[in-house]
């Protein structure tokens, strides 16, 4: 169940900074520990950069979700870019198509509690992450 939900566009590297700050604000609102906040914001940074650089821009939807007594932040990154042909390969440490260290996807996965990726070559990519309190 989503307690609130908001969508932000990602078109420039300033937007990446902005969605990082939004992730930080939402994470502190549900009182995540400092380490958990940092992990969520770092994952946000990685994924928003992916959306911008590989997806040619897109959007992040932030949701505050509830599961029983636990609250969490769910972030969904969508783009209409070229998509990822081989997801398994893309999720491996060190795999890179851009100029990063290839830790974007695999690293972000380790920073959150739930990680889901859907990609259709030619249609775009959607990555959903959740960090529970």
């Amino acid at each position, binding site marked *: 169940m989503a307690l609130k939900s908001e969508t932000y566009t990602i078109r420039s*590297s300033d937007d*990446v900074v902005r969605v990082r700050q939004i992730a930080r604000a939402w994470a502190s609102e549900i009182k995540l520990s400092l380490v958990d906040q*940092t*992990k969520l*914001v*770092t994952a946000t*940074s990685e994924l928003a*950069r992916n959306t911008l650089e590989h997806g040619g821009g897109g959007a992040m939807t932030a949701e505050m979700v509830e599961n029983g007594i636990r609250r969490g932040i769910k972030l969904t990154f969508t783009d209409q870019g070229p998509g990822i042909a081989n997801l398994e390969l893309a999720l491996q440490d060190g795999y890179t198509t851009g100029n990063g260290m290839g830790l974007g996807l*695999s*690293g972000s996965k380790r920073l959150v509690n739930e990680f889901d990726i859907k990609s259709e070559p030619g249609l775009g990519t959607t990555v959903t992450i959740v960090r529970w309190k």
Partner: protein
Amino acid sequence: MDRIPILKVGDCLLVTIQVDMHDELAMSLQEDLTMQIAKHASRGVLIDISSLEIVDSFIGRMLANIAAMSRVLDAQTVVTGMQPAVAITLVELGMSLPGIRTALNVERGMELLREFIGRDAEAEDVDGAEE
């Protein structure tokens, strides 16, 4: 465009990153630093990141690049003041930045640089005596 100021202290360069950097800013810092090291023939570079709330793979790579480039230009790099939460996250992300020297704060970082530079100078003296 904004630029992060680089301070020259003797034969060292000092950078304090205080803003939430976007990627272009990080790239320009990397370029500026390399230029400054070459220009002043600096022997040490100290980057204080105690105000940074996150270090993602991009910033991590920038730090690693700066360290590698300054090494080529015969300068030592020390990164200081990384926050515990940032360090834990960076390790979890899979980046342990093996090529980078670190110190708890600017003061210790400067000590460390002095040590390196001093050691190099001694080595040169010894070389000189042998000739």
